[in-house]
């Protein structure tokens, strides 16, 4: 892996989550981006990690309560689905 910049690959890895979540200062982001630009391995880990999160979000957020489960829920809570 590349060690030309101030941060090494382990530093990048340690900060990768905060970087993806936008929780780092601009100066640290710039150092990370400079390293990643010259380091094929960190580029791949960062891009596949971002894609992993995207895939799980797409799959996870599509899950909804099935109609029959919803009907049983309202019945057990003694609620009418129209709010009566």
């Amino acid at each position, binding site marked *: 892996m590349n060690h030309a910049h101030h941060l090494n690959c*382990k530093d990048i*890895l*340690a900060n*990768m*989550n*905060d970087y993806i*979540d936008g*929780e780092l200062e601009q100066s640290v982001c710039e150092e990370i981006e400079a390293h990643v630009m010259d380091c094929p*391995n960190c*580029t*791949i*880990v960062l*891009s*596949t*990690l971002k*894609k*992993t*999160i995207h*895939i*799980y*979000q*797409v*799959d*996870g*957020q599509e*899950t*909804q*309560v*099935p109609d029959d*489960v*919803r009907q*049983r*829920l*309202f019945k*057990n*809570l003694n*609620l*009418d*689905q*129209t*709010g*009566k």
Partner: protein
Amino acid sequence: MSETILYEAIDLEALRHKDKHAFVRLVDQYSDRIYRVGLKMLGTEQDAEDVLQETFIKALNNIEKFEGRSKLSTWLYRIAVNESLMLIRKRKDTHISLDTDVETDQNDLLPRQITDWCCLPEKELVNSETRQHIRTAIDELSIANRAVFLLRDVEGLSTKETAEVLDISKSAVKVRLMRARMQLREDLTGFFAPRIPKEQL
């Protein structure tokens, strides 16, 4: 953003006065999220339904204890996670703590597989076979890592909110999220790597 809008739309005073319209709005707005927690934490639709039912029964019976210092959603998520943990404990007959084993060992997090599969088309990344694989991979996360991953990455809670729901520190949330994400990335890399066309390797 939508969280704030939904939270403000619920009339807390009406809930405290057991107003049925307000309860219906509460259930309408939060049932999908609570169901997802049960499903991802326990893995079966039957268990997810049990978590859903118990969460709203407890919420409705204890709404007067909700002081409004946290978001209503945070309070509901906490009930749902606790219900999920209780069911898991019953199944496994063991104690589960969310606040252990969070020492940071960077070697745990080192990537083992470096293959770029981002070039695969979106339809291949989220088809039905992939989705099944994804669900199995989530089931293989430790319960503590799974809970953090679910709240942060699927439900979109902040680090602070996730720490509140699970009653753990923000640094524990960050360590657990990193472990979960890296484990899932490794898993997906193993799954997608054989599907990459040879000319793109």
